């Protein structure tokens, strides 16, 4: 897909991620529904497939899962440059997208974590700290389910997509119950997809 981004749009992308950063209690993936609402829904800067593949590739690759944020920035920049056909300019914009989204995602939470860690460590018996931990825990779990749900609900044709949902359910069961390496599962998903099974 091809989109146009003005300097003001880039700034808005940056500030959006600055604010998402401070919402990422329970990990960056918990904010995926919010990114989806903004990038795919409100702005149309990312396609549904790009959003899903950013998460899938980051999950398949080594390293912290937060890198899916950089991948989304990469895809937004690539779209702004007219896709891979746009040559070096598209890739330069893609790198700008990575920088904007990753820095936006990391700067506020990093500063807050660094300064608050010491305070929280000293006051870990404080009632307010324990109440915050206890009260937020159920939300963190629910956000993970919401993210998984939104990723599966991206497929809107139940008649054709029930096999995909079955694969999602089977994956969840295998990861929950066994210690099978995640890479095998991602690979299996790719192979099943290529063979047209799902």
């Amino acid at each position, binding site marked *: 897909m091809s989109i146009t981004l003005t300097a003001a749009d880039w700034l808005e992308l940056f500030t959006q991620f600055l604010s998402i950063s401070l919402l990422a209690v329970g990990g960056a993936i918990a904010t995926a529904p*919010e990114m989806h609402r903004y990038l795919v829904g409100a702005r149309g800067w990312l396609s549904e497939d790009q959003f899903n593949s950013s998460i899938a590739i980051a999950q398949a690759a080594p390293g912290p899962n937060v890198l899916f944020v950089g991948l989304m920035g990469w895809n937004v920049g690539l779209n702004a440059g007219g896709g891979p056909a746009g040559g070096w300019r598209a890739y330069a914009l893609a790198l700008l997208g990575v920088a904007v989204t990753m820095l936006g995602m990391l700067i506020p939470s990093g500063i807050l974590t660094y300064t608050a860690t010491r305070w929280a460590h000293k006051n870990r018996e404080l009632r307010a700290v324990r109440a915050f931990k206890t*009260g937020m825990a159920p939300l963190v779990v629910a956000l993970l389910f919401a993210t998984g749900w939104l990723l599966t609900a991206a497929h809107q044709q139940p008649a054709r997509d029930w096999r995909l949902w079955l694969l999602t359910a089977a994956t969840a069961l295998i990861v929950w119950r066994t210690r099978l390496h995640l890479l095998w599962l991602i690979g299996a*998903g*790719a192979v099943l997809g290529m063979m047209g099974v799902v």
Partner: protein
Amino acid sequence: MPTFDRPAPATTAEPPLNAPRSLGDLFWSFTWLALQGFGGVLAVVQRELVEKKRWMTREQFIEDWAVAQIMPGPNVVNLSMMIGGRHFGLAGALAALGGMLALPLVVVLVLAALFATVTDHALAQRALRGMGAVAAGLIIATGIKLIGALRRNALGAPACAALAVATFIAIVVLRWPLIWVLLGVGGVGCAWAWRGVGNPPPPPANAAQPPQP
């Protein structure tokens, strides 16, 4: 900024803890453990830093992990900053953070670029469909695993379930922005917990507020 001062670990029969030798040591240690972690780095962090390198005790790790989870931001990234910051201050935090992200980011982008060159092929599209379904399953499984951690939650199962269901409905059905869900449902949860957790035995003189998202 000062480094984090910590109480000296209780003397046990265990050999003394090690420490990272330098900023470079921090950077490469975190790079190495990030590159080992597929679908999440936490398990690798625990094994490498507690068991192999002995930079921290198991108790310290659990305590740090709890704090890293409360703070906004990616948990593992928060944890790496806390560990780096304890040994070398701000420079240490940045070295650990850089190690955690720099090389893995290059790997992810190379993978994505490889995908992009074939992304117009029906075959790659279909492969990604399958991978996306698996990724959704991975995230749901993480959620299932964390339900176990809620069992020890002071709120009790019914309250936890009510908060979780309210969160899920607000995000998935009502499509509320995350901030309102965190402030609204989270605020109710924190107030509920405030009544439930009671006061600790020695009441601290400090009455500051927790960092609210």
